[in-house]
């Protein structure tokens, strides 16, 4: 069984500062993908960043980067230079199975203070 755990229900960051959201996971598969999704109040899931498990190099997308620790099964998201538009729910997800299904964590609500 696959599990994804986000231990921070809420996080707060000052505009322009850096924040790190935590995620741990468990899977029996050797080849998998990890994702961070952003869900604003509009409900639509937006892909922020992805990481292939076979790649040792941490993924980076502009202000977003991950710290992927495969042995520890940890996958944290770092948001640099936080902006007001970053405020949303953030979900960590694990892709598994032949069908590419996603298992999501419980989410972290990020608040950005001006």
């Amino acid at each position, binding site marked *: 069984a696959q599990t*994804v755990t*986000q231990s921070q229900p809420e996080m707060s960051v000052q505009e322009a500062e850096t924040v790190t959201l935590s995620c741990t996971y468990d899977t029996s598969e050797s080849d998998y*993908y990890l994702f961070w999704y952003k869900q604003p109040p*509009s*409900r*639509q*899931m*937006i*892909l922020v960043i*992805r990481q*292939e498990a076979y790649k040792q190099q941490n993924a980076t997308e502009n202000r977003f980067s991950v710290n992927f620790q495969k042995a520890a099964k940890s996958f944290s998201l770092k948001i640099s230079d936080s902006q007001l538009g970053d405020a949303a729910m953030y*979900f960590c*997800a694990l892709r598994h*199975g*032949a*069908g*590419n*299904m*996603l*298992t*999501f*964590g*419980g*989410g972290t609500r990020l608040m950005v203070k001006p």
Partner: protein
Amino acid sequence: GAGVSQTPSNKVTEKGKYVELRCDPISGHTALYWYRQSLGQGPEFLIYFQGTGAADDSGLPNDRFFAVRPEGSVSTLKIQRTERGDSAVYLCASSPRGGLGYNEQFFGPGTRLTVL
């Protein structure tokens, strides 16, 4: 181009009623997924279609839930004898194909179902 669309945006029904939720995937996407997101939680997988067939329905909670995709495009999630516990946001996603390898899932805005 158009993204994944879902109708209705909101649905309110009474306990025991039957409801249908519709998903229009991105044109040409062969894989389609349904997820359920209860209040304050992350989405949970329900069912996956590859083309017209349900390739994996292991996430459907019970036999009151059923989904179809008769022509390999639009999908309908059907819930019989609704219960208050069925209240949630139902998300649909599509991807160019399923299977191994990376395929990004594109999500729709969801249907918020409320069972009174």
